[in-house]
């Protein structure tokens, strides 16, 4: 599976010390951390959009149901994460969406 010769050494910084070493694929492919953006509603599970209850420009309150995402035979009623306006709807009814896909973007308002 691996040959001793094809060792590619890189630098790993730990507590200000720079270590020459091989970096694991898991480490190299790790996702950089992004703080959650509550104005963007993402799919929490892969599934099918079966109903969208809002239109662009609609005013919503935090906790209002905005769409139904069916996954694992369960119809999940998805609520708005913020109060504000529906800025952009990135899906249509019957769309199959992967996990983490943008569904609706909001314009949060107090």
């Amino acid at each position: 599976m691996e040959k001793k010769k094809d060792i590619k050494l890189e630098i790993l910084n730990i507590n200000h010390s720079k270590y020459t070493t091989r970096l694991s694929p898991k480490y190299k492919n790790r996702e950089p951390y992004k703080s959650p953006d509550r104005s963007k509603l993402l799919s929490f599970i892969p599934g099918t959009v079966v109903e969208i209850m809002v239109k662009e420009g609609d005013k919503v309150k935090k906790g209002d149901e905005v769409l139904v995402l069916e996954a694992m035979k369960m119809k999940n009623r998805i609520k708005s994460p913020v109060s504000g306006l529906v800025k952009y709807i990135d899906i249509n009814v019957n769309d199959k969406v992967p996990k983490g896909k943008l569904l609706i973007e909001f314009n949060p308002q107090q």
Partner: protein
Amino acid sequence: MPLDQKIKELQERRQKILLGGGEKAIQKQKALGKGTARERIMILLDEGSFSEYDMFVEHEARDFDMDKKSLPSDGVIIGTGTIEGAPIAIFAQDFTVAGGSLGLMHSRKITKIMDHALKMRIPLIGINDSGGARIQEGVNSLAGYGEIFFRNTLSSGVIPQISVILGPCAGGAVYSPALTDFVFVVQNISKMFITGPEVIKTVLGEEISMEDLGGAKVHSEITGNAHFYAETEDECFAKIKELVSYIPWNNQRKAKPMEPAEPIRECDIDKIVPDDPTLPYDVKDVIRSVTDKSEFFEIQRHWAKNIVIGFGRINGATVGFVANQPLEMAGVLDVDSSDKAARFIRYCDAFNIPIITFVDLPGYLPGVDQEHAGVIRHGAKVLYAYSEATVPKITVIIRKAYGGGYIAMGSRHLRADFVFAWPGAEIAVMGPEGAANIIFKKEIMASDDPDATRKAKVEEYKTKFANPYVAAAKGYVDAVIEPGETRRLLIHAIEVSDNKSVSLPFKKHGIPPF
């Protein structure tokens, strides 16, 4: 009927059953590079040692026209035999018979041999090659799996349990191997997953091949579910035999000692480790320079490579090695390497195998992904496993031993019996650069030439603290030794601790962080 005729009848009956699922099914099996269940057993066990039980068992299913079907031996072969003279209980699922599917009698045969192995206190080897539950038998096949899992758990830590995945092993079936000590997989043959590609596609719309989802490489490199990877079945069987030679028959015995032998002088132990603690080397070279014949039987070689675990022999006696690997991720402890080390330490402790720890690590891997993946919970497993282990624990600090990593890696404080340090050992709260930046922050900031001051302060810290003598002065390190003395002292330590006796406070069991 005279006896010779009865014998003939027996021979005929046997002959029929030995064909398993028939010529066609056997050819199909062979075309995939797979052996039949009985062939596999014969290759693995000593010649002529296999004694088969329950050859004539038949299934009892009546629904869905199953009563019209005959399934020879109900798709699983069980029995006992020996490997290099060591007694072994074994079962092998026969894919040529109804896809090796697990029904009531099939599972009863497996649990029979499991009960036998536990009662006789001999190792159990299971060869898995099965399409899964026999759906026609309904809840009976689920009951069968449950009975197997229960016995895997009871036997855990009493007798060695080895799983060999030589075909599909899907759905609930995967949990029997997962409960056993060691899992062997073979390229292109082994497939393990809870839900297969078809289900994933229908439910989630994600497309993936069986090999990419749960093939041998995936479980050897990514999930850590497999402990040994082989390219062919024959290579896999050779590895199983080697493993069996290192471990005892049960938890009340010690592994059989071999004839002592000197290491082969491949590399000079004094020259393996660079002085600069930020430069890498292969810690397996250090291990091989102290073991008999320089042999090292590595476990989980392709997963969490920043820690190295495996068996070797010191003066004939089996020992378990746990070693940070500076060549991979600087040898840090992280979620996966903690998991890997902790489970191996518990294995050695359960089966009376002394643990030798080689320490050279900068500490824990920093990062959001690590923190969120639970490095606290996983890292704690290492502390738990070392603290709880009562087998002889011998620790050699090769170079860096910083911070929490120092404590975790078999330190005196977790009751190591012997702690040796090489002269280049740096036992400190953190590396000199990090420490100097904190301790001398004011001086560095106030300086006209902060870089020069920082450099000077790093040097000052290095001289004062980055050595083994501060810890040795407190008795945390028993002896500072020359690298060349390591093997002699390991032999001595193992001899001295042969009758080690310590007892833990009474408990039903602890609550380790898993």
